C-alpha cells in the first residue's frame, strides 16, 4: 500500500493534513507498520532519490501488507523539511527515513518531539536515542571505476562533473583519482563544479567542456544521466552514477556505481518489528551490499577488468583501502602518513584534494 503525498499538497492545502490516514496510537495490533520517506529530489530523477525509492519499493515487496509506506518528494533542505518530517510522524509512521544531508537538523528537532518514532538519517553525523544515521562508502566504488579509467584513458585525463565541494564529493574525487594514478602516475583529473545536483542540460555542457579540454573519461557526482549522453555523442567513455545508466549511453557507459539501500531498509524494518531497533551509525560499502558496480561494458579491456576486479576483491577482503598513505594534498602537506589508512573521521571531514586533481 502506498499513499503519495506531494509537497505541493502540503504547501497549498492545510486540508491535506486531515486527509492523511492516522494509524498511530489507536491502531490495533494487526495494523501495518508505517514507514515514511523524505526525498530531496523527484523520484523521477533516476538518481539519488530514485535509488532510495527503489529501497522503499523493495520494502513493500518484502513485507507486503505488514507495512504501509508513504513518501514526500521534492522536500527542500532547511526549515521546510521539519514540517514535512513532522507531517509523516503525525500521520502515524513509526519509522522515518530522511534521505539527504540537509535534513539533519530538522530530523533531530522533530525526533525530540516524537520520542517513540524512530528516525534514520542518511549521510549525517548527528544521532539521538531515536535517530540513527547511515551512509554508503561510495568512494569504494569510485576506486574501482578509477582503476578502469586509469587503464583505459588514452589522454590520461578524466573529467569529473561534480556538484558541491562537500566532504562526500571531495572524497569521491580523491578516491577516483588515487585509483587512476596508481595505474598511470601521470593521470590528471579535472573537476567542473556544476553547482547543482540536478540540471541535465548544464551537466551535459560541463561534460562537453571537459571533453573539449582533453578528457576521454567522464565521471560524475551529479544526479542525471546527461553527462553520459554527452560522452556517447562525443565518442568517449563514461561511468554512471547512483544507478545503471547503460540505456542512456550503450557504448560510452563502462560501468556505474549503483546505490542499493534495500538490504539496509529491510533489516531496519525487521528490527522495528521485533523490537530490536537501536540507534547507531552504519557506513556500508561494497562488502555490505550498499554499493554495487553495474556490469562492465564489453569495451572494458581484459587488463582493466582484471585490475578492477582485483581492487574490488581487495576492498571486500579488507586488504585494500582506497585511502592508504602516503597521501599529500596539493600544497604538498602530508595528510595521511605512509602505510597508514585514512580514518573514517578524516574521510568524513575531507576538504583537501590529493595532488594531480584540478579542482
Amino acid at each position, binding site marked *: 500500500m502506498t499513499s503519495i503525498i*506531494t509537497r*505541493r499538497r502540503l504547501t497549498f492545502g492545510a486540508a491535506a493534513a486531515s486527509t492523511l490516514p492516522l494509524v498511530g496510537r489507536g491502531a490495533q495490533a494487526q495494523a501495518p507498520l508505517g514507514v515514511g520517506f523524505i526525498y530531496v*529530489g*523527484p*523520484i*523521477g*530523477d*533516476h538518481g539519488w532519490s*530514485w535509488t532510495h525509492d527503489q529501497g522503499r519499493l523493495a520494502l513493500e515487496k518484502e513485507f507486503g501488507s505488514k507495512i504501509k509506506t508513504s513518501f514526500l518528494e521534492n522536500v527542500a533542505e532547511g526549515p521546510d523539511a521539519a514540517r514535512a518530517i513532522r507531517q509523516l510522524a503525525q500521520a502515524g509512521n513509526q519509522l522515518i527515513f530522511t534521505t539527504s544531508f540537509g535534513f539533519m537538523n530538522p530530523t533531530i528537532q522533530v525526533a525530540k518531539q516524537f520520542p517513540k518514532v524512530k528516525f534514520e538519517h542518511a549521510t549525517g553525523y548527528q544521532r539521538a536515542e531515536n535517530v540513527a544515521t547511515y551512509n554508503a562508502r561510495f568512494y569504494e566504488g569510485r576506486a574501482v571505476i578509477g582503476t578502469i579509467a586509469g587503464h583505459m584513458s588514452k589522454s590520461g585525463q578524466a*573529467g569529473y562533473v561534480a556538484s558541491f*565541494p562537500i566532504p562526500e564529493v571531495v572524497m569521491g574525487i580523491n578516491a577516483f583519482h588515487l585509483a587512476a594514478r596508481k595505474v598511470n602516475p601521470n593521470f590528471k583529473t*579535472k*573537476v*567542473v*563544479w*556544476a*553547482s*547543482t545536483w*540536478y*540540471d*541535465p*542540460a*548544464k551537466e*551535459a*555542457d*560541463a561534460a*562537453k*567542456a*571537459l571533453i*573539449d*579540454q582533453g*578528457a576521454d573519461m567522464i565521471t560524475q557526482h551529479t544526479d*542525471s*544521466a*546527461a553527462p553520459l*549522453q554527452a560522452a556517447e*555523442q562525443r565518442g568517449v567513455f563514461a561511468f554512471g552514477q547512483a544507478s545503471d545508466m547503460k*540505456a*542512456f549511453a550503450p557504448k560510452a557507459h563502462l560501468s556505474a556505481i549503483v546505490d542499493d539501500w534495500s538490504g539496509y531498509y529491510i533489516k531496519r524494518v525487521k528490527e522495528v518489528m521485533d523490537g530490536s531497533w537501536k540507534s547507531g551509525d552504519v557506513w556500508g560499502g561494497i562488502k555490505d551490499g550498499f554499493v554495487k558496480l553495474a556490469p562492465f561494458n564489453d569495451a572494458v579491456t581484459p587488463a582493466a577488468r582484471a585490475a578492477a576486479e582485483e581492487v574490488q576483491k581487495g576492498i571486500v577482503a579488507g586488504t585494500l583501502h582506497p585511502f592508504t598513505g602516503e597521501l599529500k594534498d596539493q600544497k604538498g602537506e602530508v595528510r595521511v602518513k605512509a602505510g597508514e589508512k585514512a580514518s573514517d573521521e578524516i574521510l568524513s571531514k575531507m576538504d583537501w584534494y590529493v595532488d594531480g586533481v*584540478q*579542482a
Partner: protein
Amino acid sequence: MTTAILVSILMTLVAASTPILLAALGELVAEKAGVLNLGVEGMMLCGAVAGFAVAFSSGSTTLGLAAALLAGVAAAMIFAVLALSLNANQVATGLALTIFGIGASSLIGAGFVGRTVPRLGPVFPAALSEHPWLRVIFGHDILVYLSLALVIGVGWFLRRTRAGLILRAVGENDASAHAIGYPVIAIRYAAVAFGGALAGLGGAYFSLALTPMWADRLTAGRGWIALALVVFSAWKPGRLLIGAYLFGAVMTLELQAKAAGVNWLAPEVLAMTPYLATIAVLTMMSIGRRTGRLDAPACLGKPFSAT
C-alpha cells in the same frame, strides 16, 4: 586555444541558447499583446514531456516536435481561458500554470524515466554538418535555424505588418483597440497560443536535442530565464537574440573556464555570473531611461473585459 575547442564551444553555446530564445520569443509576442504569462516553465515542461512521449512511442522526432508544439498550445489555452475569458489574475494564473506543468509533466513522464530517443540531428548533409569548422554554421538542428528565422519573422511582423500593429495596439491600449472594433480577447488568445507553441518547442529542445531523455523538471528553471530575457530585451526581438546568446555564452564559458583550470574564482561566483549579468543590465537600462517602465506594453498584465 585551438580551432577545434573554439568550434566546440560555439556549438555548445548555440545549443544552450536556443531553447531560451524560443521560449522568450513566444513570451515576447504574448506580452506585446498585453498578456503576462508567467507559466513559461510549465508550458516548456508540457512540451518537453509530450515531445519525448510521442517521439519515443512513434519513433519519429518530427511527430514529437509537433506534439510538443500542440502540448505547449494546450497548456497556454488553460491560461488563456482563466486569465482572458474569466479575467483571473494573470500573475497568479501564470504561476499556477507553472506548478501545474511541473506536476502534469512528472505524472505523464513517470513511465518514460530511464528511456532515451535518438537525438534530433543536424539538417545539412554530413559533408557540411561534420566539417571541422563549417559546422559552426551548418552543423545545427532544425530548431536552431527555426529560432533564428523566427526572430526575423517576429521582428518584421511586429514592426512592418498591419496585423503586428494591431497586436501592439491591443497591448498598449486595449480600450481604444476595442473601441475601433478590434477583437481584443481573440487577438490575445492568438498571441498566448503562439507563446505556448514556442515554449513547447523550447521544452522539447531539452528532451529531444540537448539531453534526449525524460527526467522530472528537465528544463531546470530555464523558463524563468526566458521571462527575464523578455524584460532584458525591452520587448525587442533583435535584442532578445543578443540577450539569449549572451546568456548561453556566459553559461558555456563558465563551465569551460572551470574545465580549463581557471580556479582563482570560487565555483559559486562563476555559477552566479549569468544572474549577476541580468541584474546589472536591467539596472543599467533603468538608470539610462529613468522612465521607470522600460518600454513595457502599457496594458501588460491588466485584465480586459469588453463593456
